């Protein structure tokens, strides 16, 4: 995740179920230069999330392109979409 410092990448973390204390304890060690929603249980429910962590990767037009990818597969998915951008003419 930390590799993708390109402007065209965004990370939105949605936390569910943690109490404020648990949340701050978990966040303490991480960089916080990304959006992190607290108490997003209703969003998770709407998205049909029933296990953690669950990752979605959206392209620049907001379409879901990958779901449930982790680790290396996640990096590859993001890289693939970033590469797509480079091939498209700038709008």
């Amino acid at each position, binding site marked *: 995740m930390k590799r993708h410092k390109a402007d065209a990448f965004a990370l939105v*973390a949605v936390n569910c*179920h*943690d109490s404020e204390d648990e949340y701050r304890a978990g966040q303490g060690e991480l960089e916080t230069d990304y959006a992190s*929603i607290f108490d997003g249980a209703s969003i998770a429910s709407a998205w049909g999330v029933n296990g953690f962590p669950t990752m*979605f*990767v959206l392209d620049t037009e907001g*379409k*879901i392109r990958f779901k449930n990818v982790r680790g290396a597969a*996640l990096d590859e998915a993001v890289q693939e979409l*970033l590469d797509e951008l480079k091939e498209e003419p700038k709008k």
Partner: protein
Amino acid sequence: MLLTLALALISPVSVPLALPSSALERFEDDSAYEELVDAYEDSYQVWRKELKDADGIKARRALREREPAKLFRPRFEALAEAGSGRALVWIIEHARKVEERKQIPALKEELYGKLFESHLSADWFEEVINLYIKERRDVSAEAIEATLASALERAEGYARARVLLGFARYRIAQKCNSGLEFYEQLMKEHPESGSALAGKWEYDRLTKFAVGASPPDFKGETIDGEEISLYANRGKVTVIDFWGYW
């Protein structure tokens, strides 16, 4: 009570006159079943404790011979004979404790057959459908398809809505996209049913939040109260990470 059970036997899939035709559900008086299940559960709790406290292999083996499911089975069979569909369900659910493994497929075929034939309109039938569509080992896919298709033709009203929902869930579990059609049919033909309500939730999860879909926006707050919206990230490759602990 005997009279009610007798009536249930005589008129398997008839429509009770008091209900509006759109509901078309049959309410069986199953107080005998309720009593027997309570008795079974009590026996089971006592037996489990004895098993836990048992001293040595011999004692344990003796106890397993007296497993409550084995002792109660004939009584549930009698209720089923008298017309109780829920007794049939109990027998299916406890088959493993009573039957030899290899007898189970044939037993289930017989019992599910009876259930779908005579109790399709019962108000508790959703339980049967949910059980049935999860069968993998003891019932073949062909049999499940055939049973559900046949049930779809015979059922009406809420009973039909339940079959549609079951069929949708089954197809999705089998990784066929044709499951979506069943959801659509359900929502179109039985919009006011509880099955359609549950179905719509599942349908949305499958269509709006599946790979290839464009999901709706959401807004949330950071712990410091700043507002975040998904759509604000348009133009960027966005990873959404749902995390937390149970």
